[in-house]
């Protein structure tokens, strides 16, 4: 077990969560909660894999994954924005829909080898002692894109005019509306952007970071963890990134724990009683709940809440 491997693995798998969580943050800041991340990710993963396989180009696959997630999210947008349906139920049905579509269209993809998005090393930065080797050498290109997405999304949300409009729409849509901001338009846009990023996260799994198509095990609940991460991150992309990477590292650590080594000078119980591994596999989910308890408590203490209009349909002339 080496720290270096855990860190690098965390950066890789964390990138998947990061894409999905930042997407969901953007959607939720506009006042729309989309619980269908898991479905959008799975559909994105399938679309990316299938397209890459068919065209031979992983980049076309990536685009297909993004488009698939985005298109699916539009169903949620239509139902929750125009039809004012309950966002929780709509998000759940989106999960079923995405999962179902991915399984139907992904029939027969298991076991195939699609062309993948490759790893890369950043020329100068990788020369930095130790840090360069960990952060900038031989990682998937998408990991570097993730690095860029973090500050850009933070800056976009907090420092730009469209970002200010986005926050206004999620916080007090009536105010935004009275100043001529198109509330429905903004909500559609960011639901779509969130869907695209979820699709990207799915594509990052199937054709980049842990490649392959394993039907619904491809995402194995990471979409839900991304949703939890948003609450833990208190709608801040920086915290979401940190949480995503930490989570990735933990996962790797859990995997390493199953090896035949000594643990603090003790025989590793997980190696000798292999069934205990089930308890290790539980840990990401247990940790998510613990993080959520901690996140909810600190949000309450600091009085940081969800965007005020989150989950509430906007109808002109009604309160809210």
């Amino acid at each position, binding site marked *: 077990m080496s720290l270096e491997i855990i860190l690098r693995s965390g950066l890789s798998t964390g990138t998947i969560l990061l894409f999905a969580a930042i997407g969901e943050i953007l959607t939720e800041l506009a006042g729309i909660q989309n619980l269908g991340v898991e479905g959008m990710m799975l559909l994105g993963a399938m679309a990316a894999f299938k397209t890459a396989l068919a065209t031979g180009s992983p980049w076309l696959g990536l685009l297909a994954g993004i488009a698939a997630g985005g298109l699916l999210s539009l169903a949620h947008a239509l139902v929750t924005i125009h039809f004012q349906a*309950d966002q929780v139920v709509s998000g*759940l049905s989106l999960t*079923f829909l995405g*999962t179902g579509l991915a399984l139907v269209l992904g029939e027969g993809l298991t076991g195939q080898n699609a062309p993948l998005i490759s790893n890369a090393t950043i020329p100068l930065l990788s020369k930095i002692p130790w840090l360069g080797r960990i952060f900038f050498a031989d990682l998937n290109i998408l990991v570097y894109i993730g690095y860029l997405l973090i500050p850009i999304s933070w800056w976009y949300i907090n420092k730009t005019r469209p970002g200010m409009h986005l926050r206004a729409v999620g916080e007090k849509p009536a105010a935004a509306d009275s100043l001529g901001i198109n509330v429905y338009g903004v909500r559609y846009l960011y639901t779509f952007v969130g869907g695209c990023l979820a699709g990207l996260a799915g594509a990052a799994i199937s054709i980049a970071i842990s490649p392959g198509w394993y039907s619904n095990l491809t995402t194995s*609940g990471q979409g839900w963890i991304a*949703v*939890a991460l948003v609450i833990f991150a208190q709608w801040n992309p920086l915290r979401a990134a940190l949480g995503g990477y930490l989570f990735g590292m933990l996962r790797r650590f859990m995997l390493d724990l199953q090896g035949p080594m000594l643990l603090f000078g003790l025989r590793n119980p997980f190696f000798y009683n292999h069934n205990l591994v089930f308890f290790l596999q*539980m840990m990401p989910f247990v940790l998510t709940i613990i993080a959520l308890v901690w996140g909810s408590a600190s949000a309450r203490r600091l009085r940081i809440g969800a965007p005020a209009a989150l989950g509430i349909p906007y109808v002109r002339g009604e309160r809210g």
Partner: protein
Amino acid sequence: MSLPYHLRIQKRTEEVPRWLPLATSVGAIILAFLISALILLLIGGDPIRTFGYFFNAAFGSWGALSDVVVKATPLLLIGLGCGLAFRMRLWNIGAEGQFYIGAFFASLVPLVPLVDMETTPKFVILLMMALLGMLGGGLYGFIPGYLKAKFNVSEIISTLMLNYVAVFFNNYWIYSEFSDAGFQMTPVFAKSAWLPRLADYAQEVRAFSGITLHLGVVFGLIAAFIIWIIMSRSRWGYEINLIGDNPQAARYAGINITRNVILVFMLSGALAGLAGMSEVSGVVHRLQERISTNYGFSGVIVAWLAKLNPFATILVSFLFGALIVAGREIQPSGLYFFIQGTILFLVISSDVLLRYKIELVRTAPEEAK
């Protein structure tokens, strides 16, 4: 502006006609099947044959029909539990986990065994199993309820996470302590831990031969009746309805919200736990992996489609039971999820018709000019 007619969409001010919710639900289901047929066509399937096969697999014989009811039983119990929680706007998505824990608790009776399986009367064993199943599910429902009430932790996320935890927990036991000679399942329960099936009486009534229908369905029907009594006749039901409509008003009326959140979550979990017991004791007769074919999630849809009405839940779970039975037979396997998702989407979309009146009206002459 120059069209002679236009759509007018208006908020309903008068009460919704009684037939409309039913009509929209039925319409949504029919539409969902049409869309699925379209998808089947697009991927090169034959929708008519598939659905014909579908129908046959579900209703083609008494045996098939009995299979449908068997599959509908856990859906009914889970749907009732979810419906109860949804009344209070508690999103219990964790029925899947509560189902597994309930099944595990109930299985302890024959597996440990907690009582002598030979001498103890069968109904005592079954009663213990049912109670333990409910206890397990109830305790597992307590966790998200408590976290929600005390720390305001989103129950959607916590119940979902707990689903995964429950599956791994269950796996540990069936792979290790209770494993049947290293297989990923426990030994078959002693016969005294089996819920009675119609097939058991094949000697008395010839027609029952091979009919797998078991007593669990009676649990479901009784539960539906009890939930109906609670929701429409009891003080507790009034409190639940009030909290669901406006929690602020409920607090103002002196109702203890924390306690009710936890209690409702526990009851909801207990029903899912009972479903788990009914499944291991009535169908599988052992604890193993994949005792649930996504009952937990389907139960959510069942509850919503039934508009949280206990009696409607009976009908809808029957329909979904048919879907599962037929779904086993058809390819591709994801179609089942897809149909479920589409139905739910269409149902919530159609709700807009309950809140708005959409009519075609003649454009006013002043406006047309």
